[in-house]
């Protein structure tokens, strides 16, 4: 592999030299809003890409799309090079903050101030996802993806169970389903981000939203908060109790894994992002159409400090503008008018997305799958805090370490205390 990293480094170095050279000569003309179509980069998504393409091209831009992991790498190398996109898709949070700190991103606060109707068009908790040090650096451009607890109604009926509303009920259900020979919870444990959802919710319910904000803003020492240890201990208890069965460590989300187990009734529950609905609709259409897929909010934790309504997940995705762009003005116009555009929003709804735009309930109610989408919409609308997934909200290096430790915790290879210690050490 080192060969690839070497060539990568070379390309980047060459690119950097080119940028340095370009800076020397093109100083005066920079930011004059030159012509040509602006480039928009987004993540591949068969359902949403055509909509994004139409919207970008309507405003005089072009759209390029990339797969998930290559996208993050490509973006990192491209930004700051002459090939940087003008507008790019991102997740907000700490991930975006790294680019902001490197002074690569255009501050969009003035744009929002000039267009009060734009600012009030989006749900505040979602708009805040791209707010860094009090300034807005991105405008929501896709639907909201909160994490919710899915369940198989048939399995619940057969066991005479009702969906859990509190943590203790969830634990009781684990015992009940185990006794019935069903895996209580499906978990794609070969991928750390699925395990992340559990600790994100548990920490929020246990210690409130400030615990993680503290970690994100003030550094790894924040992991020492007692609530982290309590949440990690709860994870361990759930694992040891057999909540996730025995083979979760090799189950994946992508290859017919965790979702299929739920649909086939081999597992009773599955904590997943809201995209699980569309995923099930494609993989196991009958399961969804016959109304066997149920969903509830993550259980509350009596005695915990967190607000019961808080949700975690991907609040939305955002478009941000690069400072090096030669078409900043055109790009600004695009993000200021294209993303709350009625037609754009309606297309998102038609594609099964739940846009982060206010007053969507009636529109959602008219679209297919309204029972689910309106529920998701209300869940987020009522939430005062929408905690962005930690792996997006932390810087890349911290997030990578955290995910590794988390997998070790789920495997029982480290104790909750060792988990906390390793993370606090930074």
């Amino acid at each position, binding site marked *: 592999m080192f060969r690839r990293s070497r060539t990568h480094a070379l390309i980047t170095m060459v690119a950097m030299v080119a940028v340095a050279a370009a800076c020397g000569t093109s100083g005066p003309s920079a930011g004059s809003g030159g012509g040509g179509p602006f480039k928009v980069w987004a993540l591949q998504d068969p359902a949403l890409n055509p909509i994004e393409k139409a919207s970008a091209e309507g405003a005089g831009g072009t759209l390029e799309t990339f797969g998930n992991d290559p996208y993050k790498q490509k973006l990192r190398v491209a930004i700051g090079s002459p090939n940087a996109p003008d507008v790019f898709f991102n997740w907000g949070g700490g991930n975006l903050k790294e680019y902001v700190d490197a002074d690569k991103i255009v501050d969009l606060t003035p744009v929002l101030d000039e267009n009060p109707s734009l600012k009030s068009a989006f749900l505040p908790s979602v708009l805040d996802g791209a707010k860094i040090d009090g300034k807005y650096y991105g405008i929501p451009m896709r639907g909201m993806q909160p994490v919710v607890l899915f369940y198989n109604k048939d399995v619940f009926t057969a066991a005479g169970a009702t969906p859990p509303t509190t943590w203790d009920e969830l634990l009781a259900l684990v015992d009940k389903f185990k006794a019935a020979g069903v895996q209580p919870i499906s978990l794609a444990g*070969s991928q750390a981000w699925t395990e992340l959802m559990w600790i994100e919710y548990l920490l929020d319910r246990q210690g409130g939203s400030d615990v993680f904000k503290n970690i994100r803003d003030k550094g790894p020492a924040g992991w020492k908060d007692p609530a982290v240890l309590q949440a990690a201990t709860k994870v361990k208890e759930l694992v040891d109790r057999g909540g996730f069965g025995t083979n979760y460590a090799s189950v994946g989300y992508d290859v017919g894994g965790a979702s299929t187990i739920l649909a086939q009734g081999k597992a009773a529950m599955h904590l997943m992002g809201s995209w699980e609905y569309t995923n099930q609709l494609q993989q196991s259409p009958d399961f969804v159409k016959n109304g066997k897929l149920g969903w509830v909010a993550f259980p509350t934790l009596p005695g915990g400090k967190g607000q019961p309504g808080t949700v975690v997940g991907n609040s939305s995705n955002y478009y941000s503008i690069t400072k090096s762009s030669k078409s900043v003005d055109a790009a600004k116009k695009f993000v200021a008018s294209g993303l709350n555009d009625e037609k754009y929003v309606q297309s998102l709804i038609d594609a099964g997305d739940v846009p982060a735009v206010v007053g969507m309930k009636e529109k959602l109610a008219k679209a297919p799958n309204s029972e689910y989408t309106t529920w998701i919409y209300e869940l987020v609308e009522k939430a005062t805090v929408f905690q962005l997934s930690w792996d997006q909200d932390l810087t890349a290096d911290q997030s990578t370490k955290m995910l590794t430790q988390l997998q070790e915790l789920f*495997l029982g290879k480290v104790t909750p205390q060792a988990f906390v210690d390793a993370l606090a050490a930074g």
Partner: protein
Amino acid sequence: MRQRPSFWYAAPAFAFFALFAALPMVLVVLLSFTSWDGLGTPQPNGVDNWARLADDGQARDAVGRTAILMVVSWLVQTPIALLIGVWAAGRQRTRAVLSSIFFLPLLLSTAAIALLWQVMLDPNFGVTQSIGGWLGDVQFLGNPSIVLYTVAFVITWQYVPFHTLLYQGAARAIPQTLYEAATIDGAGRVRQFFHITLPQLRYTVITSSILMIVGSLTTFDTVLILTNGGPGAASRIAPLHMYITGFSGFEMGYASTMAVLLVVVGTGLSLLVMRVTGFRSMTSQQEGA
């Protein structure tokens, strides 16, 4: 001295090597003394990365796993490849058909192989589930103490055909007269194997071993797709650890430090193997040489 082609014939190759191998390597060495997140300018930080590498438990574990993978792959692949190769060099009737089947993995791309095994070893829907019973409830990809050997198995499955090909070619080149003489002297097939075939294949064993050793040092794609280093970090071998540090954590400086270490260790190991085995003298043991 015999007439040799002018040095300039090699110039394009040298230029290519300098641009795509030597120069990047120099840059990586330079990067290894910096802190760089891929944005902005690399910040020199002296020997910080090297000090960090010296007491980085995760990196040490990753190197340990690479060592295990290297030893296991060599121990398993060499005898299998050698035996199949020598067999395939023979004139049996079934040889052509069976060899084609044995060489099949060679035709598949690494990504296809990794995905194939990932699906086959899936604990819920995989083949291991279908054949059920006698394997028990073994988690080939989910058990941290088994997964590295599963990876070694998949890599073996993937690369044995290639090494078999090396051995087949070399075994074919052994003069038939040696065997004829041995037969006259009354040596059986087993003795012929140990006293003619094996010594004659000596340099092929070395070549193939170096390829295996350096290959396991840089194995990456199979593991990335098959397990992505998991569960936990149980199959996170050194190159993958470097990749994750560099391209998920974006600690390019520190990842370059690991890259330098891998280059040094890889080069060192191949030099060592050549030295120890006397590969450099490369004298032929065949008649008339």
